[in-house]
Structures are given as C-alpha cells and as structure tokens.
C-alpha cells in the first residue's frame, strides 16, 4: 500500500512521453520456415492445406499480418458460396474492407462478391432485421471471396509468400479511424425504405398467421391418423397453454393432494423424526452462524483497530 501511494503523480503533459514511443521490431524469419517446409520448392508456404500470405496494411505499416487462404469447401452447398470458386481468407485485419480485399486479389481473377464475417461459417450469416441497422459488422476476421472462375482461387492460393503486399494504396485507402467513424455517421437511414421493409414483413407475417389460424380452425375437432383430437386454445374445451409455470403448478397440486391423504406424525417414529428435524434445523442455523464467525475471524474481522 505504501508503495502504491507514491504512484499518484501530478499531471504530466503528453509531450514528455512523446519521445519514448515503442520501437516496433519486425523480424521475419519465416523464410527459413518456408525452406523447412519440404513439400514446397516454390516460394509459397502451405501449412496443413492453408496457404500463408504476408500482408501489410499500408506502406507505412511496420508489421506483417499473416493471412491464411484456402478453398472453401463445405458439406452444405450454398448458392452464395459456390464450390470451387470461393476462397476462404482467415485472419484479415479488423479494419479490412471489401475494397482492400479486392485490391489484394485483383490479379488473381475477376471477383464477383466478397463476404466479411466475424467467424468462419458453413453458410453466409444473415443480416438480421432485429439487429440495429446502425451497427456494421465490425470485428471482421474471416472473408469469403467468390471468383467468377475457379482458377481465381488457385491463383490466390499460390501467391508467393515473400513478396511484400499491401492492403491499401492511393486508390483504395484504408477506411479506418476517424474517417470511418465519420463515414459511418453519414449513413442516415431512409425512412421510406425502412417503412416499406417493415410493412412488407408485417404483411407477410400476418398473412402467415392468418393461414395458420385458419388451418387450426379447420383441424378443430378433426381426429388425426391415430384418432387423436388436438386440444387448442380456441374452440369449446380450451386447453391451457403448456408452459413451465403451468406444469409446475399441476405438479404442485398433485403433491398437495398426496400430502393431504398422508397421515402426519401418526407413528411415534415419524413424530420423533419431525422433532429431530426441527432440532437439527436450529442447530444448523447456529452452526452456520458459528461458521460465519470463524470465517470473519480468519479475515481478522474482530480486531477493532
């Protein structure tokens, strides 16, 4: 504690700290690793099926990032991510945009679509309506790049490892920091579009609801194949909703019923048992208090000063 006290310091201006910026060090000895990888005699690096790519954010960057590239393959075929033409890119930097990736892979082939996601999935994440529109999917880390032709993927996977590559240049600047926040704020939603979308969805929803209700009504009282009639919330004998609460209540009722029929303290042993229980309870409380005291004692809670 005493040490800590002297740590409160009076205000220091930033300028004095300016000179002491951290020295970044960029040691890239992966070249050695690339040669260690015996499978490979070209200068690209493939580990467990993932091609590794070194990328810098811009020419001002002092550190490399490592992208892991692989052809997307999944048991579920999706229209959005066609087999053979989709490239999975892992560990893209958090500020990476579609434009940055387009720039990186523009020499590999024509790119049709790019999906940016926070994690790897089997199919594209749906943009949910209920998630606020204002928040972009930030914190991206995996990208799916769909090429027009399959050899785009192959070209990308065989990109050389040791060439210096940049995510940005003059034409595709980095969209990050203050500029990105400003840009984001400019994205003011159009009320008309919002209204149309919402109305459309609601109309569909109510239509579906109506259909379901109609169907239920039609099925009312009609036995199914096995001859059972479904109890619904409409009609003559309404069933109560099957909720947890209701179920609990029903169980409780049963238990009470059972309890009522049971004879209490009938046998001497039963009587003795209840008495014993009572005493044990009292004792438990006392023990509990004692335990608490012991705990307090251990933490020196009784030394007043």
């Amino acid at each position, binding site marked *: 504690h005493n040490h800590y006290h002297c740590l409160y310091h009076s205000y220091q201006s930033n300028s004095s700290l300016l000179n002491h910026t951290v020295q*970044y060090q960029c040691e890239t000895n992966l070249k050695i690793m690339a040669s260690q990888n015996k499978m490979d005699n070209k200068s690209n690096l493939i580990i467990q099926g*993932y091609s590794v790519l070194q990328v810098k954010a811009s020419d001002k960057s002092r550190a490399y990032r490592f992208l892991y590239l692989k052809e997307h393959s999944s048991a579920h075929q999706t229209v959005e991510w066609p087999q053979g033409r989709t490239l999975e890119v892992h560990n893209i930097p958090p500020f990476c945009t579609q434009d940055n990736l387009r720039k990186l892979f523009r020499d590999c082939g024509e790119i049709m679509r790019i999906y940016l996601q926070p994690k790897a999935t089997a199919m594209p994440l749906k943009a949910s309506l209920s998630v606020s529109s204002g928040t972009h999917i930030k914190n991206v880390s995996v990208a799916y790049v769909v090429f027009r032709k399959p050899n785009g993927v192959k070209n990308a996977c065989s990109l050389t490892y040791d060439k210096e590559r940049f995510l940005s240049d003059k034409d595709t600047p980095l969209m*990050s920091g203050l500029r990105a926040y400003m840009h984001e704020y400019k994205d003011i939603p159009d009320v008309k579009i919002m209204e149309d979308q919402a109305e459309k969805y609601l109309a569909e929803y109510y239509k579906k609801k109506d259909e379901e209700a109609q169907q239920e009504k039609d099925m009312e009282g009609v036995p199914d194949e096995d001859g059972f009639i479904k109890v619904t919330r409409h009609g003559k004998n309404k069933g109560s909703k099957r909720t947890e609460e209701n179920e609990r209540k029903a169980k409780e009722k049963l238990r009470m019923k059972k309890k009522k029929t049971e004879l209490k303290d009938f046998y001497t042993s039963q009587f003795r048992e209840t008495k014993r229980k009572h005493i044990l309870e009292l004792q438990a409380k006392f023990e509990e208090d004692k335990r608490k005291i012991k705990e307090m004692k251990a933490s020196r809670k009784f030394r007043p000063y």
Partner: protein
Amino acid sequence: MMKRKIITEVEEPAKKKIMTDDTGPKGRKKGKLSDREFNMEEISKLKETEALYHSSLFRLQVSELLREITVKQKLRSRLEEACTFITETLKNLPSGKEHKITDKKWLKSKGIQIPILERPAHVKGTFQFEPPVDVCVSGSFVIDAMVMPDVVADLILVVPKGFFQPKDYLNQRYTRKRALYLCSLASHLDKLKRVQDLKFKNFMGNPHKPVLLVKLNSEDDKTVTLCLQVVPETDTFKESRFHVSKNNIRPGWFSENSEENQNDDGTEALPATPYYNSSVLHDLCLVRNKQFIEKILGGSEGVRDGVKLLKVWLTQRELLKGLGAFSSFLLSCYVAYLIMSKKVNKLMNYYQVFRTTILFLSKSDWILEPPSLFEDKPQKMQPSLDEFRESGSCVFVDRSGFYNLAYMLPPHVFSRVKHEAELSLDALEQHQQSSFDALFMAHVSFARKFDHVFHISLKGSQLNDTLEKIDGLQQKVMDVGGHVSLILSQHVVTVLSEALGKRAKLLQCKIDKPKEWSKCDDPHDDKETRLTFGICIDTANAFNILDKGPSAEAVESREFRAFWGDKSEMRRFKDGTIHEAVLWTDSTCQRDRRLVCRSIVQHVLQRHCSIPAKSIQYMEGKLDPLLHVNLLPKESSLLYGTGEEQSLAVHHAFDHISRAVRTLSSLPLSIHSIQGVHPVFRHASVFPPLPVTQASSDVDVVSGHAVPKEGKSLPQYIPALKVICMLEGSGKWPEEIEAIVCLKTLLHIKMGAELRERHSMSTSVHKDYVDVVKDGFVFRLVISNTRELAVLRTVKTESGMIKFKDTERSSALEKEIVDLPRLTHLLHGIQQENPVFSVTVRLCKRWIASQMVCGLVSEEAVELMVAYIFTSPHPYAVPGSPNTGLLRFLYLLSSFNWKADPLMVNLNKDFTDEDYASIPKEFQKNRTSLPSMCICTPTDKQGTKWTKPLPTEPLLKRLIILAHESMTALECQILKSVDVTDFKMIFRPPLCHFDLVIHLLKKANVLHHQSVDGNECVEISESKDTGKKFPVVNFCVAEKFFQDLQTTFGDLAMFFYDPFGGNVIGLVWKPQAFEDKDFKPVNFRFRRPVINDTEKPNLEIIKDSILDDIRVMGGGIVQSIVSPKSLQ
C-alpha cells in the same frame, strides 16, 4: 420391524461390530450425540440469547470481539510483576535535597526537561523529593477492564503530606511541584537497568497534569508500560479551598506586575479559577473516587465486559482519548452512577450494560440535570449545581461533592457523545447483520463523520488579537495557565452554534490524539495554534440563502444587528412585513448554496473573534471543481456550478416532451408510461448535457441531418437521452420478435412524423428509436411493450412445452424497460429527500471513471452503493456534503466484505425482516455461482442485476486497493490541509501499471473539458433554435474507438479508459493470450505460424501487428502508444 431387528442382532452379533466400525452409522450416531448436547445446554442458551441479547450472531460476534480485546493472562501477570517491582523501588527511594521551585539546574544536569509550560516563570516555594507513602494500582487494571492493544497499568503514587507547604495550593505551585516530582522520579528510574524508556504524557490531555510513562523490560524479554501518576495525601489541603468559584491563581502574579499577592485571603473579589481548582481536586479526591468505583464495578463480569465494549465504542469514534475527551475514567464513573441509581445491576450481561449505558447517555443532559456520585448529607462549603454550571463545562459531581468529574468535558463533546449514542441505538433497532460492524468495527473518523470540516490556524500575533477581541477570555487564560486553544475552541463553538442555528445538527472541535514525548524534549511549541472543527449540517436548513431576523421594530432587532453586523439589512418580505435579515448569496446555484455555511463561519469568526478568512481553511467545496465545467460566454445566463441546474433543465424539457408524447393521436395504442432511463433522469449523470450549439460551418448536411465534416474540428458531443415509452398491452402484438421490431419501426415512424408536424419539433427517425430535440437537448424515444420481453424469453422445448428462459437479449431488454425505469424512479425519490444525493453520486462516479475502470463497474452499481450510504448510513447520520459522501463511499467499497455478505440496499424501505434473514442465507448457499459483488434491492433479491459479469474478482480487488488508497489520501488532505493541497490527486490514477498507454489526440477528444485537469471552456448559445438541421448526436470518437478496441482485442487484452475526457487508454495484456496455440482455423487471429521442435506447426501471437492494427484503427484519434515501463 422391531422384531426383525432383534432377530438380526441375535443372529449376527459379529455384523453389529462391523457396523459400528462403519463410518455411515457412526456419523449418524455423532449427530444424535450433538443433538443431546444441543437440547440440554444450547437450547437454553439460545433462548437466553433471544431474550437478553440482540441476536445470536451478534452475541457470537461480540464474544469474539471481547476475546480479541481482553488482556491475556500472560500479559496481566507480566504487568503485575512490573507493578510490584516498581512499587518496591519507589518506596525505597531516598529523600532528595531542597531546591527552589524555579531552580532548574539540577534538572539540566540530569538531562530532563520539565514537562509543563511555566508561564510566568517565577514562583515562590521550595521543592524537596520525598518517597511516596503509598503506591496503588488504579481502576481499569484492578477491575480488569483494560482494552487491547495499548495496555498500560496506572500506578498512583501518594506523596506524603509533608512534601507540600501550606501555600502550595496557590499560583500553580502545586502543578509545578508535581511536575518536578515526576522529574526526580524519572531521574531515579533512569538508573534502573530494567527501564527501557521514559516518556511524559498529559493525563487526559490536560497540560497541567503530566504523567510519567515507564517502559519496563519484563522477565521474558517483553516490554510493558506503566503510567505513574502523583497525588497528594487526602488531607493535604482542605477540599473547600478548591471550591469552583474560588480563586487560586492571583491575577497580579499571573500578569507579572507584582510579586505574589499579599492579601491572600481576599479571594471573593477575584475571578474564579474553576479549571485549576478542579485539576487539583482531581488529585486530591482520586484515591477516594477510585476505591468507590472499584467497589461498585468490581466482581461483575457483565459490567466489566460492558465497560470494555463502551471503550471500544468510544475509541472507534475518536472520543476516548485526548484533551476534552470522554475519558475511560469518566466512563467508569458513569457506569458506577448508573449502578448506584439502579439503572444497571450487576447481574446484567454485557449487552444489557452496554445498551443501557448508551440509552441513558442519549437521554441525559449533563448541564441541566447532572449526574452525581455524592450520597452523603451536603456539607456547608459544598458548591451548588449552579456554581458548577458556571464554569462552562459539563457537570458530574464526584463522591466528595466538591469535585466536578467532567470539568474537562466541553458541552460540544458531550453532545457528540449523546448524538453517537442516539445513532447507535438506532443502529441496534435495525435488525441487520451490519449493526455489530456499525457499533464496534467501523472507525468513525472525523473527516467521514462531519459534513463540513474547517481548520483555524493562528500564528502568535494573530492569537493575541483574537484573545483581546473576546471579552473575559483573559481571565480564563489565567485559569488554564496559558493554554489558549482550550478556551478558544470552546468560544468558537459557542459563537458558531449561535450563528448557524438550525443549519447545524452538531458542531465539534476535533480532539487531538494525546502525544507522548521523551523526558528530555520540550513539548510546548506554540508557534501556531491549530484547531479543527466539524459541522454536521441539517440539509433541510443549511442551504437557505437567507437568515430572517426579528421584525424591524422589535426590540430584538438591535441584538440581531449587533450579532451580524453590517451583513444585516432590512428587507421587505412577500407578506409585506419588514424584517432584519442576512442574505448570504444571491446565486441560485446549488453549489453556492452549499457554501452558505462557509460564508457564515468566515463572517462570524471575523466579526466576533477577529479571525481573518485567510486563517480559516474550509474544506467543503474543495472537490467541486471536478464536477464543474467552464462555459463561454461567461456572462451567459446559464450557471454551471456542479451541474444540478443542468439536470433540472433536462427534467424541465423532458416534461414538455412527455406531455407532447402523451397527446399523440397517431398511435393505435395508448401510452402506458414514459420514463427516462438515462442517468440524468435520476440526477446521476456526472456531466449533465448542455444545450446544443453547432457552428454550421463545421458540418455537412445529409437529408436534414448535420453530419461531421472531414477536415473540420469535431462537433460538440451531444448525448441522446433515452426515454422508454411503454405502450399498453394488446392481443394484437405479434408473437415473433422480428415482427415486433417491424411493428415498432412503423410506430416510431408515425411518432416522429406527428411530433414533427403537430409539435414542430425537430426529429430524426430510426428503426429502433426516434430522436427529438427540445430546448437543445436530444431525447431518444424508444417504444416498448412487455410482450417483447415475453417473446424473447419464450423457448419451446422439443416436447412442445413452453419454457421461459432468460437470454442475453431478454435480460438486456428487461434491464432497460423494467429495471432501469424503476431504479430511476427510486433514486429520484432519494434525491427529493436529500439534496446532496445528486452531487455525491456524481462525484463518486467521477472518481470511479477517473480510475479508468468505468466500464468495468456498472454505473447502476455505483449508484446503488451511494444509495446505500443514504438509506443505511450507520454508524453515521445521512451525509450532508459530497466530501463525506465520497469518503464514505470509498470506505464502503474498500471495507465491505464483498465475499461474505451481500450489500442490501433498502430502497423505499421495502425489505421485510424475513428478507434480512433469507437473503444472506441464499447468498451463502449460492456464493460460488454469484458474481464478485452482490448488491440486493427489494426487487432484486439475488443482487446480481448490475454486477454481472463485471467486475470480476481481480478487478474488484484492484478497485478495493484504489478505493482504500484514495480514501486515506483524501482524509489526510482534509484533516491536514495546507493551502496548496491538490485535491485532484486521487483522481489521477497511476499509469505505470499498464503494459501500454495509448495517448489520444486532443482534437479527437471532444470531451476534453470534462477531464480532471481540463479547463477549456464550452461554448453555449443563448438561442435555443438549432435551425432546420438535426444536430450530430452521440458522436464521441474516443468512446467509439475504445469500444472497438474492446470488441476486437477483448480476448487478448483489457482496456481502461476514463469516458469523461480521458486522454489515455490503458492496455494490459492477458497472459493466457500469449501462449502458442495449435495450428487450427479458430486460432488464426493475430497469429503467425512457427515450427517448434517437434516439427509441428504452431501459432504464435504477433504483438507488433496488433499494435499496428490499433494504430490503423485509431487513425486520426491516436497520438502515440507508449510503454509506461520504459519510462522508469
């Protein structure tokens, strides 16, 4: 069944033997065994506890406490041995040579400094050392009521009658001879091998009455301390000579005009010297009183332990020791008095003794109805009660009937004791687990106790001015022998309590800790007199800006004018009458009103005591700058004190909005309630929003909205104040969350359109909310319905059963539409009762934020902790100033046992007795699954709502350390303040604990004016017209950047930030993030491949690329990233 049992036993005796060896049945047998014990003794004990003690837990706690403070037998026997040793030594001392009293040469040769102040120096008489006729051990050691840790055995040395000359009662001769006697004792004892150290101390802080502290080596190499007091034999002087209204210090002698007065017995005309007289009487009657008390108190365990508890209770309140304290001798006398008057009997247990004593203390009045130990028939010369009262102190007549036991106890200290007794009784009434802590464990420090603290420091010449100014003080100075602070404090308290009147509930001068000094030091340096006062204010009256006096024609008006001086003016009041009145400030600002007491103190002390304002250090208001914002232009009509007015302005605008929303006709359902949930609606927003001003040149316009323009300075930060509009329920609400969201969007659109068209308000419609501008504030209206909550919670199991289960989204929604409005409502209620709640809670939040842990402890948790301070203030009264509020908050945070107890905030007093039993029980049961801190309210009995998932255990630990350090630092600043004290110190946390510190660019930090050291001005416009365009809302890039850092790198590091204008972000790496991971897609983030020894590729984290990412993400925001460790 019985039969079968017997048979088996008969058949298989061997099995039985095995059975008993078995642990199962044995365990049960044990249980039964303890049952029997429980039946016989424990049950009777439990019953007794219920009837005679507070509660079983309380009883256990107290007995643990007693065990802790009781003097162990070993130490006791050590002390006993030391006492006999010293007694033997002292009795066999040889008589000394005769010296004049003024002769100090022989003392100097022995290296001893006389322990009293000799002013005037010359005095007649001679001194010759005689060994004591008797040595006896005093009170608390005899009745075994000493309290650890500083155990001292008092020895009383009875000096033979022949030591004193007949006129030694006069002119401090007694005092000086007594001091010389101690000096020669010291010189003798110094020669002993066993004596380690000799020190002087003032007995009960009385500067006339030094005692000698002897540190002795005992046989087993431990040291014990004895305290030697000197008293004359009982019949040395006549008691009536020291009658309170007699004079025993001649003014002629004291003012050094003549040699000792000739006409010795002309005492009637001379001013009384009650203080001096009592101080001699104390010694004269000591043995008699002591024997009586020992007889009364001795032999009863309950009384003994009760006295010990009372001592702990007083010590925790800093009232037991020091000058003017409620000393342990006084305490023993009072308990003896209660026994005498049959209020306490010897069969009572310690709890009853303790409770009865504080009960009678709380009811008693030691001036109007003083207690008395005197039982005999009154003697002829004995002083009457009125004569006792005249001395100005409290009265408690002793056994002899002449001596006032409480002659050193000033009325203001007694009223403090009384006040504490009342509070403690109140704490005992509350059936809470914390009453034990409040009574005996919590240290009630002066700074935490008193709302306003101020110091008076007077240098030599100033002191003389002051003394001359005050009538009749010279005389008293003579009585106390030049120790001015003694009477000055009393005078200041008297004047101030008249001046403050109803504003103050309690006024006390701080009792300094008694000091000890070595035998060769001079304790008296009177370069500076320093007094510390505390005021407990009554918040209902203390902030009145006007003191209304008597009607101008009334006779009393002259008196009123005389008291207040030229501050008093004639004023015409609303009802047409003209009164004398004093106006303290014409500002309506709450900050200025809180400082009215300061103005009164300064004015009155200047007027009545000639103490200049610069000699008064008033601590209230010193922390206000932390909540203050400078406005531009300065002459604007807006006042920004500590922000209360801005909160009110927001409330005012909100009333308009809520009226407008209620009359909306375009909504298909009616609005059930409109509740603001932003902290400003519960007066808890650290910096309440200011009305909008945005220079149009700095923004672009996109479809009616202003947007920040690149290359220009960032627009002023305008928070959106969230308001929840609950629509009434209807069967037509959809049963699917997406559909509800769509429906709400449509409703928001309608709401926005109508507010814009019919009420001509500037609106901005979004999917989830509508922003509305009113009076320059932006309100964010959100429509909601409880159906939404139900839908989010509903889960359909495979068997078709509908279950309700809290999901992350549903609990977030529940907080927003149920819990927050309720909390807002309740805290608003606390603010209505306590006008300082708002400023306190905001100061506490400011502190939390400045420690850069703001996001890690939820705002609401902090608000509830502050609410606890107001709803359960024990052992204090409800705080009356932000300073005490902050200190108590820090104390609560750092001393509360978060691991073992839930904090129960009794909002609206809705907790039942049953809750107080069941909540801690449940807590104990589920402790492992509960968060690190649990704050229960009547509607959240588990107490997890606002403390899950953060703070985590290590964070809480850090917070506790920070709180503790800040508290000690601030308390020290308040109590020992000098002019240059920097009160912002505790708001600047150390940065060196971080791995990296990210400095932000000043231009990106739009809230810089709110930072601890920021003093930029904020421009505000007078016109509330914001033009056609909708202002930029909720745009704080620093905050956004901080949040992005957390979401992106949250797995790798923790980030710390002060949202109120903080210009740094602290970063601490999480160690587990730096381990190498297997080569798997889930581990790819921020890592690079490496080949380890086994030729298996691994993944290693690249710090540099993370730092590079931070720099790219913070483009235009980050200035530099530095390592604070590299600076060291």
